[in-house]
């Protein structure tokens, strides 16, 4: 059976590979161990180089250690924090705020986003609120939320929730709205009920959008955690950084920064894995 295949654009993976010149790739493959691709080599190399440069500059003491500690000082500060035991309470508090806010944002943002995407009348009714809140820097609601909820964890969760809600909600709605109408028609043609249409077409088609919405929400939620803890808190990584900053413990500030960055990188990487898993069919697409 001869079937002429229509030309399709190269997959994302192929185009990524194509960026390296083939000869350099082959040469590198011959010398490097299997876990170390050329791409990784350059990434790790650059990071090591920057860390070394930072340490050298710090050791030259152009600026006092108070202003610019080196990577070794930051590691020492970490050690001190772990020995003091305070860090675990801070981490636990911040992690709770982050995860509770994120979970709330998903639990509320997902169904509301689906409803907005599916029913245009709901979209018309809710759009003014969504647009208003989305355009407002939600961080500016912090004083209001503290008045209403106090400086305990509930106000912090509320801020994280508000920060994380919109990426989830808007992405989900957009996912439903950008469903291929042709596939909806096919389902209708086979006599699909509304529920079947939702389960077999709308939901699976939206999953990649939901996943990337949650991934974006993580970044927003981390901002929320930090800012919420700035405005008064008993514990938390952000609070510790703030206190350390006021006492010119610059190395500790850096250590807090590393914690935030690591949380962001790890969560984003995890979610990207989930995203890729559910969007396997997309890889060879577009």
């Amino acid at each position, binding site marked *: 059976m001869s*079937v002429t295949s*229509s030309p*399709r654009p190269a997959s994302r993976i192929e185009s990524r590979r194509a960026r390296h010149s083939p000869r350099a790739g082959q040469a590198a493959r011959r010398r490097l161990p299997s876990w170390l691709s050329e791409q990784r080599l350059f990434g790790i190399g650059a990071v090591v180089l920057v860390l070394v440069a930072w340490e050298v500059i710090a050791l030259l003491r152009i600026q006092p250690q108070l202003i610019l500690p080196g990577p070794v000082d930051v590691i020492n500060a970490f050690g001190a924090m772990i020995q003091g035991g305070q860090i675990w309470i801070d981490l636990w508090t911040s992690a709770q705020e982050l995860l509770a806010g994120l979970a709330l944002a998903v639990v509320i943002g997902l169904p509301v986003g689906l409803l907005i995407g599916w029913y245009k009348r709901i979209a018309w009714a809710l759009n003014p609120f969504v647009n208003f809140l989305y355009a407002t820097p939600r961080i500016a609601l912090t004083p209001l939320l503290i008045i209403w909820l106090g400086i305990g964890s509930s106000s912090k969760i509320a801020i994280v929730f508000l920060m994380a809600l919109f990426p989830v909600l808007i992405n989900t709605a957009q996912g439903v709205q950008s469903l291929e109408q*042709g596939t909806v028609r*096919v389902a209708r*043609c086979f006599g699909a009920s509304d529920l079947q249409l939702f389960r*077999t077409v709308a939901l699976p*088609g939206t999953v990649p959008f939901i996943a990337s919405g949650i991934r974006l929400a993580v970044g927003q939620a981390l901002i929320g955690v930090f800012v919420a803890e700035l405005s008064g808190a008993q514990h938390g990584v952000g609070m510790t950084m703030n206190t350390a900053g006021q006492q010119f413990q610059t190395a500790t500030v850096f250590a807090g920064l590393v914690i935030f960055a690591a949380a962001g990188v790890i969560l984003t990487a995890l979610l990207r894995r989930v995203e890729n898993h559910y969007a396997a069919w997309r890889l060879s*697409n577009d």
Partner: protein
Amino acid sequence: MLSRDKPALSRTAGRDAAHIDVGATGGIAHLEARGVAIEYAKPGSKEVTTAVERCDLTLERGDFVCLVGPSGCGKTTLLNAVAGFVDLAEGDLELDGRPIPGPGPDRAMVFQHANLLPWRTVQANVSYGLELTKKVKKPAAKKRADELLELVGLAGAGQQYPAQLSGGMQARVNLARALAVEPEILLLDEPFAAIDAQTREVLQVELLRVCAARDVTALFVTHDITEAAFLADRVCVFSPRPGRIVKEITVPWPRPRSHEIRRTREFSQLRDEIADVLYGAKAGAGEGAR
């Protein structure tokens, strides 16, 4: 059932219709349209446009009928009415003597774009219709999907995803999916229009083979005269909008057919005959032989 060697006779009330209904099956026709008119209102205005008017059409079981006409003539609208997507303004449209209720799996549609669900494997796409009707258990549905994939020449492709398939292969999956629900009638809306010319000719032969193997009744919309002449038992030529069937032309060759038919003089003559009707109102029939 009608023998495939004799094109079914039919009755039309169109102006030029010269066919006589001899009641080949003695009873009611499989699909019958009597005086069908379809109107639609443009969104945001009260102006009503007539898409189809005074349309008569009869299909017996096993018939393969092509609707050809200029673009926008309402042939697709008529197909959508049979599918149950649009309501009639006048007339009757009956399947086995019963009015058409709404969309349902007894009339499977093959659209121009394959519209496969990209997150489902090819096999799961073919069994999709069965899954919705819930009449068949999952293992049985999978088995039937594999059988149909073999029938359309895609044996072994069941675990691939649509994005891995070429346009021609997607069209085959599209056909297999429609056949999986074992429809009473197969409705095809320019299914090969977006496919390159060579693949299209291969798929046309394949379609006729599949229809013969499954004893399919088909209503096929196209703007391609050659395609209509090659596929159909009867070609219904539409007028420009409001669409009306101006002539029904019987194609003499038995189905399934092979490529050689396209090269015969009779085939060109038939094509010209369709073109003459189609472009009759215009300056000449020169551009008809496409």
